[in-house]
């Protein structure tokens, strides 16, 4: 992710972060942010929401040639705002409502008038939650790390 972000222009990298965070959102976070919106935008569906499959690929030996590991369910949606701005979202799973809202928020993020609101009300909290969850998991795993020690043998 880091390498790809470095090679993308700033605007694309920002969009990529937005779309990726929206994919990692919990449905409740998106519904709450939607309910909190004062001026709910008019939206028009362009495509979906629709559920399909993505073939997840791995690499032989971890870093070799790709192979097809198996599929995962994925749901995607594209919407357009009245201004013509198109929002796009996709996430693992089959939650169409969640992905439709994510597409709307992606569109609102692209509009100067609402970007700051989406950042502070939605993206930053999602980012913080994910960071906190990852930290907790890492600490729980770290507590199961084996500390080896050498037994002092009885002979001199």
């Amino acid at each position, binding site marked *: 992710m880091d390498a790809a972000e470095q090679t993308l222009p700033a605007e694309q990298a920002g969009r990529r972060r937005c779309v990726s965070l929206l994919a990692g959102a919990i449905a409740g976070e998106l519904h709450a942010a939607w309910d909190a919106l004062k001026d709910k935008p008019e939206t028009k569906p362009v495509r979906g929401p629709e559920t*399909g499959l993505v073939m997840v690929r791995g690499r032989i030996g971890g*870093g070799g040639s790709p192979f097809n590991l198996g599929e995962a369910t994925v749901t995607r949606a594209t919407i357009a705002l009245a201004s013509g701005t198109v929002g796009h979202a996709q*996430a693992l799973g089959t939650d169409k409502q969640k992905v439709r809202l994510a597409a709307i928020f992606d569109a609102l993020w692209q509009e100067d008038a609402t970007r700051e609101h989406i950042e502070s009300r939605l993206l930053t909290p999602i980012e913080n939650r994910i960071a906190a969850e990852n930290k907790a998991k890492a600490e729980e795993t770290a507590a199961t790390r084996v500390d080896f020690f050498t037994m002092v043998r009885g002979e001199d």
Partner: protein
Amino acid sequence: MYVAVKGGEAAISNAHRLLADRRRGDRSLPSITIDQVAEQLGLAVDRVMAEASLYDRSLAALAVRQSRGDLIEAIFLLRAYRTTLPRFGSSVPLDTAEMQVERRVSATYKDLPGGQLLGPTFDYTHRLLDPSLLSDEAVEEPARRNAGDEQIMRVSDILAHEGLIEADGELPQDHQAGDLTREPMEFPMSRDLRLQALARGDEGFLLALGYSTQRGYGRNHPFVGEIRIGEVEVEMDVPELGFAVSLGHIRVTECQMVNQFKGSSKAPPQFTRGYGLVFGQSERKSMSMSLVDRALRAEELGEDITAPAQDEEFVISHSDNVQATGFVEHLKLPHYVDFQAELAMVRRMRADIEGARDGETEMKDAAE
């Protein structure tokens, strides 16, 4: 003559109604929810996802409940469901080096960067039934310790520095990863296709084959270089955006098996490798997969093919439990006409033999 017979609609309908009743069981007990299955029988859900070759925890949990815990039936349900969906594309290959590790052990190095992380393991439990689970006792929160930021290095990268181990498997540059769900199987098969088949293969079948190599049927001198379990990001190129974005995370188990190899006419003495990668948390399956992956590389490495685990066509053709159960279980469906035909034939053969014997006896009697 082929005679079609109808009937049994009422019996079938009532049988399914009875199935629904038995699935629900004692009505005085609360019914189990999909979330409860996903959270508390998580490893059953993982197995269903792995062998159905479809990652979706909620749907797999639904399948486990619907199948009354018959996991092969659940796998069948999920496989059937996947055929109803269109495919949007392929992911960017997973980067397991970037995994959020929940467990990582190595049997080859004691002190390795990142350490031995036991995670939520059954290892070192005493396998005594735990009476505390008979009731709903409160469970302690997990212990925590500062994680530091040491990178959890891949064991294969550590060994690679010495040049004594083969690299991650590379197929020719122009090779397109094959897909079993799109093309019919053909033998011999490339390693990418074999890994796809093994990743969805039956855990019990692969376990038995892996075990057979340890017992001497195609011995390949394995060490667990590393097992790691954790979540990895799934990314996909989205044409509308022009770059790859995250779709979310999935949990996988990866096993790097390192095998001592004396060398052959095709390869010098070195450590060779078998690879296992499985959806969900499934150490036994990923270890078995890596043993069988290594065994199936016999031809590539110039080894004699002497054992079942090395026989590609045998292993891959019989590893899919949905196919296997379909063919074995179809035997219980009506074969009335086939059997009548066989019965008539056996009667006729018997009559012919008896007729011939009677003929001989008459000849003997006449001679005497």
